[in-house]
């Protein structure tokens, strides 16, 4: 609908909405989410929905707000306005009597446990061994027994192809190995939602494949919801079932990987894809 700020009625055309089955509760829902850094508006009234088990890739030029979305879901930062829901429950703020109210730390803590994140820079704890990195949160946050956590950690290390690195220190590992440990550490928490923030951007080209292979395997063997920010278009194509193209904090275009990569409709999407490929 045309408005004063949007004379052609184009903005909000792609709202990130998905058709939900009756009574289906989405894994993630953004409602009019605004994020500002000072006077710089990164997200401007963003709406989108991610269904449970979806693998959604966010693409777009840097500064378009993709990473900010992951950081908001992980509660690394707070939104300026709007509401985020995880599995139907508010994440950080609720609306009460027309006012936006911050939820208590204790509640946020419980919500946060359901979400895991893998970072561009791995962010392993260098003062701990690989094993200690992986069991730290299962033992001290989830309250698992140390023996159980260690057993699970060894399984995960097997899964990411590093069965013999349990006692190693992160600094003695290559970037690709560190990122694989970080993936294992994230999985050890059994997250419902996994956030992948440019997980291969800091890696040497020859090890990108091994990390992506592990993520493909996780995508194929679990039903964890994934929200992915990546510049690896082939990976996005392989793993995700939905792609959202962002520009300036708005969704410009969305669709299946085939729709977006093979037949982009929007000029900005076309320009972006030809620039990165």
């Amino acid at each position, binding site marked *: 609908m045309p408005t004063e700020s949007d004379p052609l009625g184009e903005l909000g055309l792609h709202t990130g909405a998905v058709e939900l089955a009756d009574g289906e509760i989405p894994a993630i829902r953004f409602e009019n989410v605004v994020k500002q850094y000072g006077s710089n508006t990164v997200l401007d009234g963003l709406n989108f929905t991610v269904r449970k088990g979806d693998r959604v890739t966010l693409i777009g030029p840097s500064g378009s707000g993709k990473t900010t979305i992951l950081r908001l879901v*992980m*509660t690394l930062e707070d939104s300026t306005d709007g509401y985020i829901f995880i599995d139907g429950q508010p994440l950080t703020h609720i609306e009460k009597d027309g006012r936006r109210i911050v939820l208590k730390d204790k509640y946020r803590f419980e919500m946060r446990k359901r979400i895991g*994140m893998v970072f561009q*820079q791995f*962010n392993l*704890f*260098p003062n701990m061994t690989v094993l200690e990195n992986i069991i*730290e949160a299962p033992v001290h946050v989830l309250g698992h027994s140390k023996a159980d956590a260690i057993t699970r950690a060894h399984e995960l290390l097997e899964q990411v192809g590093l069965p013999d690195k349990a006692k190693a220190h992160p600094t003695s590992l290559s970037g690709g190995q560190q990122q694989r440990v970080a993936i294992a550490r*994230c999985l050890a928490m059994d997250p419902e939602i996994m956030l992948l923030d440019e997980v291969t951007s800091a890696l040497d080209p020859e090890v990108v494949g091994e990390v992506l292979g592990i993520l493909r395997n996780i995508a194929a063997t679990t039903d964890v919801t994934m929200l992915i920010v990546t510049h690896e278009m082939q990976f996005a194509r392989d793993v995700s079932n939905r792609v959202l193209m962002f520009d300036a904090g708005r969704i410009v275009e969305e669709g299946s990987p085939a729709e977006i990569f093979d037949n982009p409709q929007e000029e900005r999407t076309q320009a972006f894809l030809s620039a990165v490929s």
Partner: protein
Amino acid sequence: MIDDSLWNWKHVWAALPDMLVAFVKVTLLVTFAGSLIAAVLGLVIALIRRSSPKPISAIVTFVMNFVRMTPLVVQLLFVYYAVPSLPGLAVGIIVFGVHYATFMAEVYRAGIESVPKGQWEATTALSMSPARTWIAVIIPQAVRATVPALGNYVISMFKETPFLVTIAVIDMVGAAQKYGGVHFRFTEVFVSAGILFLIASYPTSVLIGRLEKRLAY
């Protein structure tokens, strides 16, 4: 007969036993106990300044700067005369500990700030509690970064122990002075005291170097 020689080994050997006893009982004791207090209290100060509400951290900061900006000797004398019930040695340990804690707090602050932001974000992503974040992740990394600077403060504390003489605690240098006063021979005893400090400081710095290596990962 007057001994007007420049150097007489007899006085070195005569003064040394008392000096060594004082070295162990006072100099080392005050250095170790004072360092322990400084290291722990310094960390507490750094944590309070970082994580408490404004008014509390402002008060702590004020007291800290006050202690940092007044001379150690003034503090020794003040506490010694203000709290007469405390024995001199205890005054020494407490004043050295608190005085150096204020310096070590600044070192810890820098160490805490040197922990990359990504480490904090990882603890959030793993839902770690604030207490666990500090104990398991931030403090171990911050302390590692601060070992060299903390070690330097331990050595300078060690070298300032002779100030204890001002509150009538006889440390090694005090023992040397005492001997010198009685026999009117100062050269031998003070040179010996200097050499003892040198001999003791060197292993300390080697030890700190080793500790640094052990904490490296």
